[in-house]
């Protein structure tokens, strides 16, 4: 779980840190459980988000990532466990008593206020003097490049502009942590990609801790310093994008972050010599002729191409293995044209890949056995 975070600490150091959450940790979850009636939304999460990092919570819908964000913001109270913010236990504090701000998925701008008034709101309710308020509002609007739209109403803005207002409205308060709940979800692809870069630049410029909830694995990989992969209310893995992609800890992570083949049991034994489950990334596999030579440090399997999907830069082949199982293979279209790629359909092929690219994983379903409501006392 959170093992990647504290792996350098000995157990004693870790329990010492529990009592006085040291500097450098912006948010800490300790055994957090959140139930809604019979539904376990968050199922025992331990997590540390470091100061100043861009941290993503990645997972499918219903995996508990948004609930975790709402637990940090204070919109929900955990059923069990504690939430720490900047070393302080904030579990029982109301949202307005916490030094965090949220960028909502639907932006939640105040429709009756102008852009400027929206951004000013947090400072106004905290009774910041008027002159400073004005200076900071102008500064925040300049940062999101909306300086000349201050007197518009939110309804007069485009989706991307509203998104920036929401960002400015949160940033102007200089919170300890900025929470972003799928803020780019409503934007079209081009705008989303542009905003990804801009968000990252803003985060580096202000040096704040960003916690970013998304179900888009590409977004999480490109933007984050570190990310946590959520599934069924649990954290499956925490790590840098490269760690999570290259060394997925569980079959779920392997499948959710990027495309991955998970082999186990009989098929795994035939190919790798052990029934233990492992994953192999589709881009690591070569498509070769049946009689192609195989080196001893390579794994191999034969089968025939069931489906070909031409994706422009890549072609995706789905290969049914002789003797059961299926592998997805990505090949770069270095010289291949779409016609050539599509003609491979139905042909027998040999698949070859470097044995070193096999990653052993835990079965994701293995963790489901512990979803006992009685388990874990705070």
């Amino acid at each position, binding site marked *: 779980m959170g093992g990647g975070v504290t792996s350098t600490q000995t157990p004693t150091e870790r329990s010492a840190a529990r009592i006085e959450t040291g500097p450098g940790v912006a948010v800490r979850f300790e055994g957090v459980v959140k139930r809604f009636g019979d539904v376990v939304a968050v199922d025992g999460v331990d997590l540390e988000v470091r100061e100043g990092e861009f941290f993503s919570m990645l997972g499918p819908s219903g995996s508990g990532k948004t609930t975790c964000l709402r637990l940090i913001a204070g919109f929900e109270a955990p059923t069990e466990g504690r939430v720490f913010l900047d070393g302080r236990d904030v579990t029982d504090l109301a949202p307005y008593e916490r030094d965090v*701000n949220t960028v909502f998925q639907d932006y939640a701008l105040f429709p009756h206020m102008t852009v400027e008034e929206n951004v000013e709101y*947090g400072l106004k309710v905290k009774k910041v003097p008027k002159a400073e308020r004005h200076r900071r509002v102008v500064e925040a609007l300049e940062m999101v490049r909306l300086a000349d739209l201050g007197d518009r109403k939110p309804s007069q803005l485009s989706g991307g502009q509203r998104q920036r207002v929401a960002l400015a409205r949160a940033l102007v308060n200089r919170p300890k942590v900025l929470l972003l709940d799928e803020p780019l979800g409503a934007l079209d692809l081009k705008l989303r990609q542009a905003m990804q870069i801009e968000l990252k630049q803003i985060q580096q410029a202000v040096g704040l801790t960003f916690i970013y909830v998304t179900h888009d694995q590409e977004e999480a990989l490109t933007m984050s310093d570190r990310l946590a992969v959520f599934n069924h209310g649990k954290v499956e893995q925490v790590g840098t994008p490269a760690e999570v992609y290259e060394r997925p800890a569980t079959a779920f992570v392997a499948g959710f972050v990027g495309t991955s083949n998970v082999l186990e049991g009989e098929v795994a034994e035939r190919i790798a010599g052990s029934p233990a489950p492992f994953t192999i990334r589709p881009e690591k596999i070569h498509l070769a002729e049946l009689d192609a030579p195989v080196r001893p440090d390579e794994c191999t399997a034969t089968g025939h191409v069931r489906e070909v999907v031409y994706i422009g830069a890549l072609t995706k082949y789905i290969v049914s293995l002789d003797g059961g199982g299926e592998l997805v293979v990505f090949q770069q279209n270095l010289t291949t044209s779409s016609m050539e790629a599509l003609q491979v359909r139905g042909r027998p092929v040999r698949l070859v890949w470097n044995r070193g690219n096999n990653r052993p994983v835990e079965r994701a379903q293995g963790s489901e056995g512990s979803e006992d409501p009685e388990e874990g006392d705070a």
Partner: protein
Amino acid sequence: MSGAGARRAGVGLKLASALVFGFLYFPLLVIVLYAFTTQSSAFTFPPPGFTTRWFSVAFADEDMWRAVRLSLLVAGLSTGVAIVLGGLLAGAVYRARFPGREAVAFIVVLPIALPGIVTGIALRSTLSLAGASFGFWTIVIGHVTFCIVIVYNNVVARLRRLSPNIVEASADLGASGLQTFRYVLLPNLATAILAGAILSFALSFDEIIVTTFTAGQQQTLPIYIFSILFRPRAKPVTNVVALLAIAITFFPIMLAQILTRERAGGTAGR
């Protein structure tokens, strides 16, 4: 509105529209006209002459003033109660998730769909059983039943147009519950509450069916008008009082229309 591509309405449609409007508004015009006629009973068209005599007759009538005062008081109080209860109810139904929420929402709206005569009989039976004496307070209770619906409907409709997250956003930005209500909720709901209040005031002011069952010996303005209709020599007085009722209800309803209209910029970005 009339863009280059907009089709012009045909003659038939124009004629039909004119007839409908005539049908709706001509009777009102008749009332205005005959409030000033010199005839005292059998009216002829056109009126043989005009006079403001009936106004002095009507305004000198102490019963009429008593009825106007009672109606204004009932309408004001019913509306006040409706604002508080209807507004709170709208907030509860919109925000909270409790079992039977949909049922509550339905039960609240039901009285306006029920025939007034049913509501009237039901209220009268119940109030009798409770041993209440019919008068001012029973009239108010009767009116509140439908006034709540008007306020509730207006406020709930406005709440549905708001992002459900704005309350959370306000708290997130550091506002206390009171500040959120003052700076975020009230500005967004104020016109809806006011429009609901004005409509419920107008509705209460001219309600006659439910009132007949709950008024006892009291005469609200509609009941007063209805009673003088049968006095043969005071017909123009009826028209004068009706004119007064139109004036009292017409302008508030206009105002309610203006208040609930979408602001021009409000829809631009959608």
